[in-house]
């Protein structure tokens, strides 16, 4: 046996010994408790699976760089001409420069967290809270609806904010395509090219201070695609937004993720009527700083979210709890009051995070200035608002 063989044997022996002999007690039982409350997904059709497998084998459609550059240049030229002419069916205005907004709900499900002002429940309700799509509609989601597209069919109008993973759109050709590109201009280019949807001129604008592109797809202009899949191709669990109904799409990037804001209605007239109120709502959306984003992502991982509100009178001081945290001399940037609740009991609310199922935990979320010792880590701490006790926090070392 040579030294290589001996080392392999020693390594294997060590790995087998290093592995724990048993799982923590109750692990399997806890998992089964979570499972009992969940319904299995329906089986996807074999035809779709075969089609997708075929597309992988065939490599799908590809566009050469010259053609892409030409299309992008033409789109930009069209947008410029459109702006110069100040034409267009509907005026597009940039959202206002970010200003302090009334913070109400802090949503951490998407890759970039945001706050929004709760709209009048008679106008708009949140019908979907997932890491791929935050969905709002004028009517509560029907019990049978799982995907946002189904909720769109059951409502008159609404707003959705979708985070692009590897998006996909139905092609006019008979086989599925590759994924779409995700940069905002590329995404819209692929949407128009692949599905032959007729987009209104693409207008540069801003959303919450981020550069954005916006366009409208009117009824019947969606080409070959009834929808656009934001997460991945049309297999199980793919999340989609309808294109077969009039939609104003605004596409922008935050923190490396591209988002699609979809304001939609069932008819062209409905969309025109809905847009002013919808814009008032979407203008309240504010993406949060890196530390707050990190905190809400942590909470969302355990099915919990933070709702912000004005702090009541008589709370204990939070300062002593974060003295010298996360390191001596750390400078506080903000302390925000809110309540943590569990929205997804199946996601370990029972043992992880801050709020157990059914409980509301009032906290101070304290964030810190990113100074040299922070090494670029998101810095935050939470303090129990009623007792003033330190709950948890994050800081260096940062992986």
């Amino acid at each position, binding site marked *: 046996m040579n030294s290589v063989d001996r080392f392999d044997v020693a390594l294997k022996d060590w790995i087998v010994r*290093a592995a724990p002999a048993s799982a923590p007690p109750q692990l399997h039982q806890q*998992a089964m408790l979570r499972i009992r409350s969940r319904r*299995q997904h329906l089986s996807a059709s074999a035809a779709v699976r075969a089609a997708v497998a075929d597309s992988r084998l065939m490599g799908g459609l590809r566009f050469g760089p010259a053609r892409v550059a030409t299309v992008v240049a033409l789109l930009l030229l069209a947008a410029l001409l459109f702006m110069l002419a100040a034409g267009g069916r509907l005026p597009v205005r940039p959202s206002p420069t970010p200003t302090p907004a009334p913070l109400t709900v802090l949503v951490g499900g998407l890759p970039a967290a945001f706050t929004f002002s709760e709209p009048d429940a008679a106008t708009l309700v949140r019908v979907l809270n997932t890491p791929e799509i935050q969905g709002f509609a004028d009517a509560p989601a029907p019990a049978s609806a799982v995907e946002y597209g189904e909720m769109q069919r059951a409502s008159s109008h609404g707003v959705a904010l979708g985070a692009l993973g590897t998006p996909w759109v139905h092609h006019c050709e008979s086989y599925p395509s590759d994924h779409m590109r995700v940069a905002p201009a590329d995404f819209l280019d692929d949407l128009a090219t692949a599905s032959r949807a007729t987009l209104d001129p693409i207008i540069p604008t801003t959303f919450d201070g981020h550069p954005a592109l916006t366009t409208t797809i009117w009824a019947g202009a969606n080409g070959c695609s009834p929808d656009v899949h934001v997460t991945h191709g049309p297999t199980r669990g793919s999340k989609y937004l309808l294109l077969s109904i009039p939609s104003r799409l605004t596409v922008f990037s935050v923190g490396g993720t591209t988002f699609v804001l979809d304001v939609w209605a069932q008819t062209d007239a409905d969309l025109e009527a809905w847009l002013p109120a919808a814009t008032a709502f979407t203008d309240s959306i504010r993406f949060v700083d890196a530390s707050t984003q990190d905190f809400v992502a942590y909470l969302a991982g355990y099915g919990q979210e933070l709702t912000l509100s004005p702090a009541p009178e008589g709370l204990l001081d939070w300062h002593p709890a974060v003295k010298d945290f996360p390191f001596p001399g750390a400078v506080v940037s903000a302390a925000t009051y809110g309540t943590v609740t569990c929205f997804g009991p199946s996601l370990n609310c029972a043992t992880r995070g801050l709020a157990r199922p059914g409980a509301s935990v009032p906290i101070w979320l304290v964030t810190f200035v990113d100074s040299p010792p922070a090494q670029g880590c998101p810095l935050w701490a939470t303090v129990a608002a009623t007792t003033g006790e330190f709950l948890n926090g994050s800081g260096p070392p940062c992986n």
Partner: protein
Amino acid sequence: MQRDLVLSAQVGDVDAYSTLTAGMTDRLFAAARLILGDSDQAADAVQDALLQAWLDLRSLRDPERFEAWMHRVLVRTCYAAARRNRKRTVVEIHMSQMVEPSQTDSQASIALHDQLNRAFTRLSTDHRTVLALVHYLGLTMTETASVIGVPLGTVQSRLSRATQLMRAALEADERRLAPVVEGVR
């Protein structure tokens, strides 16, 4: 027997699924612990894998392949956990030692054990995953490639590289420790 349990679970029988998975939880946890290097994260990953497998069970076309399919789901949830952990470090979560040596180990064996611990912890998730699947779960290279969803050649190169890295780390540790040992003498 396993085939019947899978078929029952595929039509929504939770008890069958519980029986089916009860016997494999220890091994799933051990593999996850090796891949992630942290017991809390490993427990979360196993729970997520058990839940995800239940939700997607109807997509499993060959019941005989349940265990291999479960390994694939586990690797996916471990990678998701590793990505989450890269993004944040929450102070309530602490990395712990991989394994404590037993009292009967000789000093040399304890030293080797510590060196392997350190070297293994420094490996990437990709490399720890390949080592765990091949050396702990005993999968073949082809099975490992199928579980991870990469070509066979990639598995071979990752395994070779991971072994090289472990060896190099051990040698570096030995070089670093040598003067101290000599000084004690």
